[in-house]
C-alpha cells in the first residue's frame, strides 16, 4: 500500500505539495538541531560539539528501522522506492571532495539552505559557491563522463547484498555502530569540555 504517491497515481501538482510539506519539516528539524549555524556544524570536526554525528545517525537508524519494518510486514513495496545507484569510484572521489568542502566551508548544501532564511551571511556565500562548483561540473561533464559512469556495481546495490547478510542483521550492525558513535560523542564532548582551550 506504500509508497502512497504511486498507489494513488498522484498527479504532479499534488506530489509537489507533498514534497513542499516534507521539505518544510526537514528544514524545521535541521534548524532546530542548530544546523543553520556553520560554527556549530564545524565544531563536530574538532570534537567540541558532536551534534552532527548524533543527529545524523539518530535520523538514519530511525528511518532505516521504519523502512525495514514497513517492508517486512509488506506495507512498503521496496522496489517502488528510489535507491541510490552504486558507482563506487565517482562516489568515493565525490565523498573526498565533499569532505574537504565541508571542513573548509562549514556547511553542506542542505544546512547552507537553512542558513539562508536565518540570514547567515556565510550561508549565502556558501550556496553561491555551491552554484559555482556545480556550474564548473556542468562545463567539465563531457570530460568527466567516463569517470562518472565508472565502478558501476548495480542500480540497486545494498549493504545486505554486498555482505551476504539479511537486511535485519545489517540494520542491527548499523544500530550498534550508531550507539558506539553516540557513546563516543558523549565521552569526547565531556573530555574536551574539561580540557578547556584549543588542543
Amino acid at each position, binding site marked *: 500500500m506504500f*509508497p502512497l504517491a504511486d498507489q494513488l497515481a498522484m498527479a504532479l501538482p499534488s506530489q509537489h505539495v507533498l*514534497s513542499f510539506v516534507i521539505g518544510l519539516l526537514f528544514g524545521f528539524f535541521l534548524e532546530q538541531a542548530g544546523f543553520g549555524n556553520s560554527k556549530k556544524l564545524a565544531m563536530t570536526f574538532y570534537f567540541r560539539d558532536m551534534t552532527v554525528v548524533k543527529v545524523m545517525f539518530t535520523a538514519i537508524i530511525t528511518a532505516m528501522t521504519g523502512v525495514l519494518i514497513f517492508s517486512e510486514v509488506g506495507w512498503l513495496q521496496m522496489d517502488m522506492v528510489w535507491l541510490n545507484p552504486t558507482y563506487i569510484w565517482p562516489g568515493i572521489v565525490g565523498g573526498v571532495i565533499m569532505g574537504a568542502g565541508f571542513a573548509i566551508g562549514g556547511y553542506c548544501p542542505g544546512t547552507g539552505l537553512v542558513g539562508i532564511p536565518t540570514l547567515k551571511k556565510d550561508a549565502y556565500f556558501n550556496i553561491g559557491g555551491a552554484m559555482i562548483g556545480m556550474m564548473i561540473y556542468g562545463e567539465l561533464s563531457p570530460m568527466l563522463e567516463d569517470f562518472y559512469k565508472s565502478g558501476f556495481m548495480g542500480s540497486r546495490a545494498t549493504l545486505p547484498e554486498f555482505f551476504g547478510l539479511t537486511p535485519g542483521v545489517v540494520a542491527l550492525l548499523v544500530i550498534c555502530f550508531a550507539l558506539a558513535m553516540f557513546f563516543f560523542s558523549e565521552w569526547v564532548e565531556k573530555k574536551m569540555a574539561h580540557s578547556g582551550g584549543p588542543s
Partner: protein
Amino acid sequence: MKSNDSYLNPYLAGFGLGLVLLAAIVLYGKGLGASGAIMRTVVTIEKAVSPEHVNNVSYLAGYGSGNKNPMYHWLVFEVIGVIVGGLVSGVLAGRVRWEVNKGPQISNQKRLGFAVLGGALFGFGARLARGCTSGVALSGGATLALGSWATMLTLFVVAYAMAWVFKKLWI
C-alpha cells in the same frame, strides 16, 4: 564548547528528522535532497543565458533540454519547503540574525572567501557523487544503499582530516 540551550536535544532532532525521512520514503517513495535543487537553479540560469548550451551539453540537457523546465521538479518544491521550515524554526527560536559564523582567529572577509571555496568543492563533489549529505548520506544511508555508505564514510573521514589542516578557520 557547550551548545546554545535553545537548540533541540540532538537525539530528539535526529528522531524527528528520521521520521521526516521515513515519511518521505513511505509517502513519496523518494528520500530527501538538497544539492539537486541547487543544480536545477544553476541550469535555469544557464538556460536563460544560452538555451543552446544547455541543449548541447548532455549532462545539462538531462535537467533542462528543450521545453523542460528544470525547476518543475519535486526536489525544488522540497527545498522551498526547507527554506520556509528553517525560517519558521529560526523565528520561533529567535535565531534570525544577519551574522557571520566563524572561528575567532579569522576575519569576516576570509571566512566568506572560504565559504565560497568550500561551497564550490561541495557542489562539485555532490554532482560527481550523485548527491550530497541529504540525498546520499541520509537517504541512501537509511535505505542501506551500498554506494551511499561508501560516499558517507569517505566524506566524514576526509572532513575530519581536512578540518585538522584548516583548524585556523574554526578554532
